[in-house]
C-alpha cells in the first residue's frame, strides 16, 4: 500500500491539473461535448484508467475528488445516469479484453456519453443460471458470426448505441466452456428491441430479439469459448456499480422514510419507530461498509466482497420502502400512474413512495439475485462447498431445459 504522503501529493497534483484544465477550458462557454472530449484527452475522465485511455493509472479512490472539483466548476455531465452500463461495466470489460483499435474507436465516445451501452446477458431460460444461455453464435466461412436468440431484462437497450453480448458458440462443450463474448451496434440488421413492462407500470427494460444478426470477428472480446470469464469481469463490476457508491448519511432509500416520519407526527407509533431506527442503523452500517470496502479496494479490482453490500442494500431498500408506506398510511393507497411508458431517467427527480416500494422488489433480482449473492459469499468468501451439480460435466446440449 502506498503511503499517506504519496496519496496526499497525488491528490494535490490532480487538484492542480484540474485547475489548469479548467483555466484553459471554460465549461460555461465551451460546447459540452468538446469539453468532455478534452477532459478525456487530458486523462481526467477516470484517473484509474491508463494514460491515453482517459486516465492516469492512479488509484480508483482518487476519482471522487476530481469529479467533485469538476462538478463544482459546473462541468457538463457525461450522461452518467443513462450510460450506467457503459461506464460501469462495458468500459472495464473493453479495457481488459478489447484490442487497441476497438479501444481507440469506442472508449472515448463511451465516456463522453456519445455512445451509450447496454448488455445482452439474461435470457428467458437463463437468469441466475447465466451460463445456461442458449443464444447461438455460429462462425461463418467469412469469419463473421451469425447470432440467433432472445435476450431479456436489457436496461437502456432503447437508448443504447452498442451492446455487450454473450452467446453459446459451442453446444457440444460443457456449458461454461462453450460461450463466446462480443459487442455489437444495436442498429445491426436483425436486432429487434421491444419494451418489457414491469410491476411499476413503466418499461425500463427490454426484450431483445436477435434474428440472423451478423457480427464481425473483430468484435469478439476474449477468445472463442472464453465468454464466461469475460462475463465475470462485467458482472463483478456490475455489483460494484449497484452497491459500491458512497452516499451521505441517511441517503438512499432510508431518506424518504425518515422524512415521512418527521413530516407526519400523527403516524408515530412505537412499533414503526423501532422498525425505522432498526433500518436506519442497518442503512448507516451498510454505508460505512461501503466506505470501508472502497478504502480496501482503493487500488485493487472488485472481488466477491461487493456481493455483501449488494445484498445488504437490497434488503434495506425493500424493508424501508415498505415501512414508508406504513408511515404514510392511507395516502400510500394512491399510486401515481400505471400507464405503460418509458422512464425519463435523466430528468426524473422524485419517485413516489408507491413507486419506490414496487421498484425495490427488483433490487434483489437485478444484477444477481440475493440467493446467488449468498452462494457467492458462502462459497467464495467462506469457502463452503458447492451444491452437487448435475450440469457441470455434460455437454450443454444434453442439459434439461
Amino acid at each position, binding site marked *: 500500500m502506498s503511503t499517506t504522503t504519496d496519496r496526499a501529493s497525488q491528490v494535490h497534483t490532480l487538484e492542480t491539473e484540474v485547475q489548469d484544465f479548467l483555466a484553459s477550458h471554460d465549461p460555461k462557454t465551451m460546447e459540452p461535448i468538446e469539453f468532455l472530449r478534452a477532459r478525456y484527452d487530458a486523462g481526467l475522465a477516470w484517473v484509474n484508467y491508463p494514460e491515453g485511455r482517459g486516465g492516469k493509472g492512479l488509484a480508483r479512490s482518487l476519482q471522487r475528488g476530481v469529479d*467533485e472539483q469538476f*462538478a*463544482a466548476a459546473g462541468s457538463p455531465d457525461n450522461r452518467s445516469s443513462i450510460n450506467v452500463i457503459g461506464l460501469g461495466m462495458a468500459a472495464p470489460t473493453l479495457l481488459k479484453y478489447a484490442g487497441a483499435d476497438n479501444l481507440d474507436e469506442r472508449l472515448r465516445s463511451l465516456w463522453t456519453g456519445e455512445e451509450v451501452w447496454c448488455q445482452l446477458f439474461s435470457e428467458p431460460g437463463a437468469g441466475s443460471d447465466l451460463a445456461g444461455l442458449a443464444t447461438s453464435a455460429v462462425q461463418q466461412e467469412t469469419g463473421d458470426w451469425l447470432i440467433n436468440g432472445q435476450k431479456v431484462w436489457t436496461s437502456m437497450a432503447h437508448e443504447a448505441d452498442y451492446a455487450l453480448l454473450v452467446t453459446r458458440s459451442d453446444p457440444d462443450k460443457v456449458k461454461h466452456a462453450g460461450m463466446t463474448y462480443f459487442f455489437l451496434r444495436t442498429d445491426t440488421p436483425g436486432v429487434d428491441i421491444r419494451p418489457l413492462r414491469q410491476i411499476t407500470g413503466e418499461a425500463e427494460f427490454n426484450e431483445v430479439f436477435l434474428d440472423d444478426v451478423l457480427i464481425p470477428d473483430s468484435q469478439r472480446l476474449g477468445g472463442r469459448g472464453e465468454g464466461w470469464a469475460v462475463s465475470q469481469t462485467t458482472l463483478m463490476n456490475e455489483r460494484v456499480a449497484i452497491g459500491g457508491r*458512497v*452516499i*451521505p*448519511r*441517511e*441517503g438512499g432509500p432510508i431518506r424518504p422514510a*425518515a422524512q415521512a*416520519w*418527521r413530516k407526519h407526527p400523527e403516524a*408515530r407509533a*412505537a412499533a414503526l*419507530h*423501532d422498525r*425505522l*431506527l*432498526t433500518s*436506519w*442503523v*442497518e442503512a*448507516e*452500517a*451498510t*454505508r*460505512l*461498509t461501503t*466506505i*470501508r470496502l472502497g*478504502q*480496501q479496494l482503493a487500488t485493487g479490482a472488485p472481488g466477491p*466482497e461487493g456481493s*455483501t*453490500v449488494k*445484498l*445488504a442494500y437490497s434488503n434495506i431498500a425493500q424493508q424501508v420502502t415498505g415501512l414508508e408506506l406504513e408511515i404514510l398510511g392511507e395516502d400510500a393507497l394512491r399510486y401515481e400512474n400505471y400507464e405503460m411508458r418509458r422512464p425519463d431517467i435523466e430528468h426524473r427527480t422524485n419517485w413516489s413512495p408507491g413507486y419506490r416500494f414496487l421498484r425495490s422488489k427488483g433490487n434483489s433480482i437485478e444484477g444477481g439475485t440475493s*440467493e446467488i*449473492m*449468498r*452462494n457467492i*459469499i*458462502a*462459497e467464495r*468468501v*467462506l*469457502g*463452503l*462447498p*458447492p*451444491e*452437487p451439480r448435475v450440469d457441470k460435466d455434460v455437454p450443454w446440449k444434453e442439459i434439461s431445459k
Partner: protein
Amino acid sequence: MSTQPMVGTAHSLVADDIANELARSLRSMLQTHAPWQDVLAGTERESTTDLALWKRIAQDQGLTGLAIPEDLGGAGASWVEVAVVMEELGRAVAPVPYFSSAVLATALLLEAGDRELLPKLAAGESIAAVAIAFATNPYDIAASTVTVSGDSLSGTVGLVAGAIVADILLVPTADGIYVVQASDVQVHPVISLDMTRQLADITLDGAHGQRVGDRAALDTALRIGAAMLAAEQVGLTQGALDTAVAYMKQRYQFGRLIGSYQALKHRMADVFVSLSQLRAAAIYAAACAGADDPDLPVATAVAQALGSVVAVKAAEECLQMHGGIGFTWENQSHLYLKRAKADSLAFGRADQHRAALGEIVNLPS
C-alpha cells in the same frame, strides 16, 4: 451533488499494519494459552478469571496501557488499538478483566483527569472496576444508591463486571466518583449467565473513599465502553461464524458435507453480511472514540444497536449448525452464546440504543 457531508470518510476504516500485527500476535498467544477447552473448564473453577492469561496480556504484552498517555506510563496509542484487543479477546471469549479495567475504569479515570491510578493500570500492577451494574442503560443511568458521609461510603451495587478480581473500585455516587480499595468492601460473586465474565454484587459498609472526579465523567466512560463492547461483539461474531463454518466443512449428513446445502450456507452468508456491517460500524465507533470525534454518540449507538443483535444471532446460528452436539456442554457454541447474550444486555440493549439514536438524529418517538 449532495451538500451533506460524507460522514465517515475522514477516518480510515481499514486496519493498518500496526493494528494487524497487534491482532496477529494476540490471536496467536490466545490460541496457545486460552483455547476454548481451557476457557470452558475455567467457568467451573472457583476463580473464573484466568489470572495467568491476564498477566500475559497486562504485564508481558503491556496491553492495558494502550489508551493511557505515555507520560502516565501507557503506550499512548488510542481506542482504535484497544478495539483490536477487544475483538481478539471476544473471539477467544477470554476470561480476563480487560473490558472492566483497561476500558471502562481506564476511560473513567482518563476522563476524571487521574494521574495516580492510571500508571498502575498501565503497568498491570492494579486491576480496577467501575462499581456500576453491567446492565446500566447509558442513556438513563439510575441514581446511585451509594451514600457518602464524609469520606465513608455505604450502599450496594448489583451485578458488577470485573469486581471479583479488582483491587480498586471506582464507585459512582451522587457526589462524584470515589476510589475505594476492594479490600474494604464485600464482593459477592454471582452465578452469572456468562461465567467467562462473572459478575458480583458489592456491599459497601462505611468503606473509605477518595473522590477522583465528577459524575459526568461516567457518561463519556460508558460511551467509550459501549464502543469497545461493539469491538468485542465483532470478535464474538467472527469466532462463532468461523467455528460454524469449520464444522460445516467436516460434518457429513445424507452423504454430503452439510456446508454444501444452500439452506444452511445461506444462513452463514447472512451472518457474514451482518459481520461486515458490524465490523465497519465498530471500527468507525472506535475511530470516533480515538479521535474525540463529536459523532461518537451516533457511532456507538449504531455499533451497539447492531452488535447486540448480530453477535447473538451468530452464536445462535453456530449452535444450530452443530445440531445436537451444539447443545452439549462440551461444545464451544455456548461460550459465544452466553457472552453474546450478556453483552446484548450490557450498557444499553439494542432497543435502548435505537431509541437514543432516534433523539440524536431527529427521528423522535
